[in-house]
């Protein structure tokens, strides 16, 4: 049996159990979290293509599975990323019962993660676009659970991801078949335009972020966090695979300058709107935009260090998002109004959940002592020599988004009238505390996550040259 088949079967099994247990959040959470963690362990540690013994029976797990002439492969190049995605899913599913994101969260979340993992394993990799579309289709169940559905957000998600799939499929066909190189500037420009459209959707460059604005406000933020974290990380890794595969793309200085320009624009737009927004959820979308801008600046350096920093930022972004999502979900559980007024004083009556929401937001903003800071520090050091102006932009982004954090801190601590609040269980405290500790630990000890980043990039050999 091959590793991709084992991963697919276990994913389907966990999905089935998640469906059966959908009305029992705790059981569903335990099953899906355990399944995801077991798959992470398998992806990271299983002896692939080596004879081994399980319960005294000699077995050999293959690395590849053929389907309709195409192959799904778990290789040294994608094991770390696949493992990371399952670890993140395990963490998010584990804490999910406290956030109560809807009956379909666990099974649909498993399908989303499974489809994204298939996108990472498929070869030729251009077919990944179709798997990302399937992930978006399953994502509809995440952002539109009964009773808390974001219909408009779902419609936009479907339209945008379909456009992205079409753009990437055409580009994926053009690049090897038509002979697009630096010597064919007209074709190269057309391919880059299509790729830009596809990746703009996948990594949420405006205006393709509007589905997220709808979804995060109308639906459960925790469910949206899983969807956006997984899809955006996959989109970034997919982009790096394109750069790794096509030498003319990564040596195109004009393209790198354009990526830097887009990154700078995202930092400015994200910073301004994060400050101006009156809803914390929408504010986080713009902080996320600024974070993406910083990631694109790291890509634009076009060096192994730059790519490592981009992947590192992507990894800690998911953790920051999950912690924020857990905190805000617990805060919002007793109210339907998501605007500023509804959060006033919540830091006084629900301090741990408020702290989780703020620490997650601070990490996304890249404030010192949080998980988002070390990669920004590294980026500033890398940029200081070659583009000091851009390094200043990174500092400006941290400051603008830091001000947004201060604004929400003031809101949470401002005095408000008495309101009935529900106490937390010990397990809720434990998960909220664990999330906060994780963000702070990664801020103090970034070496806990960066070896994984180096391993994840080892599959993209051309980017390391």
């Amino acid at each position: 049996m091959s590793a991709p088949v084992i991963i697919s079967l276990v994913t389907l099994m966990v999905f089935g159990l998640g469906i059966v247990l959908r009305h029992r959040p705790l059981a569903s959470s335990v099953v899906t979290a355990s399944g995801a963690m077991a798959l992470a362990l398998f992806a990271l540690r299983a002896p692939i293509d080596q004879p081994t013994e399980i319960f005294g029976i000699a077995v050999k797990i293959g690395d590849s599975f053929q389907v309709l002439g195409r192959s799904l492969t778990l290789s040294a190049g994608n094991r770390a990323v696949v493992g990371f995605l399952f670890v993140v899913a395990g963490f998010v599913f584990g804490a999910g019962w406290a956030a109560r994101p809807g009956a379909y969260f666990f099974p649909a979340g498993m399908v989303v993660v499974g489809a994204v993992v298939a996108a990472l394993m498929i070869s030729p990799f251009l077919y990944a676009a179709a798997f990302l579309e399937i992930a978006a289709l399953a994502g509809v169940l995440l952002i539109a659970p009964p009773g808390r559905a974001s219909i408009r957000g779902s419609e936009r998600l479907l339209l945008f991801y379909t456009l992205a799939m079409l753009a990437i499929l055409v580009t994926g066909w053009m690049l090897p078949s038509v002979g697009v190189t630096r010597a064919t500037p007209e074709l190269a420009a057309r391919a880059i335009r299509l790729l830009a459209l596809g990746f703009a959707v996948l990594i949420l460059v405006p205006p393709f972020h509007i589905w997220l604005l709808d979804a995060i406000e109308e639906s459960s933020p925790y469910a949206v966090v899983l969807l956006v974290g997984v899809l955006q990380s996959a989109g970034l890794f997919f982009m790096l695979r394109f750069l790794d595969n096509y030498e003319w793309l990564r040596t195109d200085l004009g393209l790198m300058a354009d990526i830097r320009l887009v990154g700078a624009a995202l930092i400015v737009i994200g910073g301004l709107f994060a400050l101006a927004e009156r809803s914390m959820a929408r504010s986080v979308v713009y902080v996320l935009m600024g974070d993406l801008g910083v990631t694109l600046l790291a890509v634009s350096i076009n060096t192994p260090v730059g790519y490592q920093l981009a992947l590192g930022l992507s990894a800690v972004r998911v953790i920051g998002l999950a912690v924020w999502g857990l905190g805000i979900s617990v805060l919002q559980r007793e109210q339907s109004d998501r605007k500023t007024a509804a959060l006033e004083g919540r830091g006084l009556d629900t301090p741990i959940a408020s702290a989780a929401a703020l620490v997650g937001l601070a990490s996304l903003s890249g404030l010192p002592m949080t998980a988002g800071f070390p990669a920004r520090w590294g980026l500033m050091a890398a940029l200081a020599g070659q583009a000091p102006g851009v390094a200043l932009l990174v500092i400006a982004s941290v400051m603008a988004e830091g001000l947004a954090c201060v604004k929400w801190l003031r809101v949470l601590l401002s005095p408000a009238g008495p309101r009935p609040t529900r106490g937390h269980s010990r397990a809720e405290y434990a998960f909220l505390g664990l999330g906060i500790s994780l963000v702070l630990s990664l801020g103090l000890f970034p070496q806990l996550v960066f070896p994984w980043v180096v391993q994840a990039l080892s599959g993209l050999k051309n980017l390391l040259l």
Partner: protein
Amino acid sequence: MSAVLTAYAPWAVASAAITGVMLVVLDDRRWLTIALVAQYLAAGWLVADALGLAVAGAQILGGLLVAIIVWLTWRNLEAADQAVPRANDLMALRSFRWVVVLLVLFAGWGLGRRDWMGLPGLTSTAVFGATFLMLLGLVQASLYRAPMRVVIGVLSLLSGFGIAYAAVESSLAVIALLIIVHLGLALAGSYLTILQAAPSERGVEG
């Protein structure tokens, strides 16, 4: 057989355009479902020109399943007419829809004559068919607010793309994935439509 398909391909293009227009302009759920089936048949015809009848047959079969999902969804929601735009929706004005459709048809005609896709091996009929379906699908997905109408727009867009892509890529894996995406979109549209209708249905009952 191939010669017959090629000879009558312009009829398939005309059918694709007419069904695309019907899907944007009409509100009657029965006619919308019939137009959707006819659109899959027209798109299948144009795909068969490039990939052969067997592959086109699989796509048409997938399309028929999509139409069944759409029809069953609408039939089960008799209390709330999910196909008709609300009064405050711009698309509620039928004259507006006709103006939009005419503009799109003109734009599609202009683009089709220029072979804007520039894909090798793509016949002019396939270019016209793909262009009309993609543009009309995009318009429908962008302007309507009812989930099933949006999804039907996305499906038209995807059908148009399928016609063009068939000329350059014959991989069964991609075709199978695209059929799965068609079915997944129909199911997602069905789910969202039922979800949106749920409060009003409860209102009718209670």
